[in-house]
């Protein structure tokens, strides 16, 4: 693999992405959605500031609470995933469909340069998009006269970085589907199905199923009835036992839910950004000063899965592409 050839491909891919109509449309959409999120966040912030000034509330709002609706638009509402998937899904399948892959590979370069160059190019284009929308949000803050401190600014940079990794995961997923599937529309459907499995089937359906099979019925309903009719010593004892059982049940249930939601890229993203950019109602005493250890202790498992996905998806895409039969 030559760095020089890799750089040429990455540069060409980035330019192709950022000059395409698709990219500009998606960026426009993302800016509108993020802009609306930021306006809502600024309104909340200023309302909270008014309340703090008039003494109704003792909580100083943090400028980072404005970022929280922004990350929500990118993560929870899925607009970030769409832009990343739209850039990735036809990278290989599209070249296969138009047969330009053969002429590309007849040039003196290796396959790994192509796939790495495509990945780097896509991630650079996504970085440009995210930097653009974050600059937009920052400009809106400054226009409104909200100037974050240096510490808050560095937290925003961390959120920016996490957002890029989030988009890169979705991009790598689409790239992998693009290598596996024959046509680009099948690649897109495959991407959505994998997203379905990761963000719904395992964390929501799987969690319900696991809770039901492993833990059995929730003692909640029995408690309601027993508590109502409880009138003897014996019943009270039974009720106490049931309540213990309920506590145990709830603990196990939330452990299962927490573990299975690690599989969802989006909920890991929300958990990671939630540590830094808290929603407005959670910002007590301004921006909390966090130590590195504190953060790692809180979200180490989320971080692990969050970083695992892009490497896993890209690894599969790489290996598959290297061995693909392209006749």
């Amino acid at each position, binding site marked *: 693999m030559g760095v020089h050839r890799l750089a040429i491909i990455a540069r060409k891919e980035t330019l192709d992405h950022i000059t395409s109509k*698709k990219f500009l*449309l*998606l960026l426009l*959409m993302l800016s*509108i*959605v993020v802009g*609306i*999120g930021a*306006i*809502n966040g600024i*309104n909340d912030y200023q*309302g909270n500031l*008014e309340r703090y000034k*008039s003494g109704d509330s003792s909580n100083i709002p943090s400028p980072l609470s404005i970022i929280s609706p922004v990350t929500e*638009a990118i993560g929870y*509402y*899925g*607009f970030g995933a*769409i832009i990343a*998937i*739209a850039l990735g*899904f*036809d990278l290989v*399948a*599209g070249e296969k469909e138009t047969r330009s892959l053969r002429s590309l590979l007849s040039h003196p370069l290796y396959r790994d340069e192509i796939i790495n160059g495509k990945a780097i190019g896509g991630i650079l284009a996504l970085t440009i998009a995210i930097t653009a929308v974050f600059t937009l949000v920052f400009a809106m803050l400054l226009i409104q006269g909200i100037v974050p401190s240096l510490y808050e600014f560095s937290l925003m940079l961390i959120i920016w970085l996490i957002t890029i990794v989030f988009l890169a995961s979705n991009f790598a997923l689409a790239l992998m589907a693009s290598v596996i599937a024959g*046509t*680009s*529309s099948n*690649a*897109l*459907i495959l991407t*959505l*199905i994998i997203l*379905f499995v990761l963000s*719904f*089937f395992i964390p*929501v*359906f799987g969690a*319900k199923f696991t809770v039901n099979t492993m833990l059995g019925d*929730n003692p*909640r*309903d*029995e408690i*309601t*009835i027993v508590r*109502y*009719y409880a*009138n003897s010593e014996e019943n009270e004892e039974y009720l106490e036992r049931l309540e213990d059982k309920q506590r145990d049940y709830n603990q196990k249930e939330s452990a299962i839910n927490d573990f299975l939601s690690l599989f969802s890229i989006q909920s890991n993203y929300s958990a990671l950004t939630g540590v830094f950019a808290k929603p407005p109602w959670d910002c007590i005493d301004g921006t909390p000063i966090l130590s590195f250890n504190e953060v790692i202790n809180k979200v180490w498992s989320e971080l692990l899965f969050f970083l695992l996905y892009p490497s896993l998806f890209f690894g599969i895409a790489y290996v598959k592409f290297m061995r693909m039969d392209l006749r």
Partner: protein
Amino acid sequence: MTAERVILIAKKEFNDYITSRRYIALLLMLLIVIGASTYGAFDAYNSELSDYAVSGSTVMDEDGNINSGSACYRPAPINIFRGIVMGLVSYVFGPLIAIAMGFDAITKERESGSIKSLLSHPLYRDEVINGKAIGGILALTLAVTTVFVFIVAILLINGIVPRLDELPGIAVLWAISIIFLTGCFAMAMMTSVFTRTSGMSLIYALIIFFAFAYLAPAIAPSVSGYILGPDPMAEVSDDIPYEEYELLAEDAKGYYTSERVIISGVNHLSIKHNYGEIGRAITTPSVYWNRAIRGDSFLDYAEMGISFEDFMEKLGSNILMMFIYPAVFFGISYVRFMRIDLR
């Protein structure tokens, strides 16, 4: 246009859809999504039933305390159908079946070049697009019917039998669900007529879906804030005289009314919101129709006596919007397809 040729195309399209692997996979996805949310609704039904079981009578225990249960209404089997509404509204994966059926309706034929040979046969373009639309809607009807049969079967296995007077509600929900998915299908078909490749068509369809589904509810508060200005009650301090406070409260009442009107007007733009409103009104009537006094009194769904007029008065505009979506999207794709240059 003759009905015979339209039916021929619709039949062929319908068969193509329901025998494709993609349709089966997406139907399975739909069943999983709706199954999971119905499980939640079923769970809620059971716990409400156990609340209800102990709230039927008020009893005094030996200490003289009066105990009454925590239920505020009697759950009905139709409450469980809320799972269908939640499943279709909460995740993109439910409507995805409709989007996935429509997005390559035209682009696929253009990409493979089969549209040219298709149009060289003695038939008109409007027969092609109408036949494709009818075939797709029939396949969606089959999917929704499968979901409803699946849910009813699970209810029957668990010994819950919907009452006879709930059947009209279930039938309306079935029809509204089909119209909701038809709106998504028509939208995807429209992007399919406008773009050259299937991949781009799907991307645009997803963008339009997200824009229509999520953008309207997200911008509604900003829109009303922009039009109406700040909340008059926001700057009330404790030491103003009572008369002034009265005036302010009067102002605020008008302000909140107009705020509600604007927010609900903007929300009407979202097809998902309209479907959700109608669905909630049908499946959880006790909560929906008494939102203001929820929990204040004991409500029995069966004896609430909501007439057809009440229903139309409150939800007529939502129902109208539900029909406007497929009509507008399909109209645009029809006109565009008739005029498209297919060389």
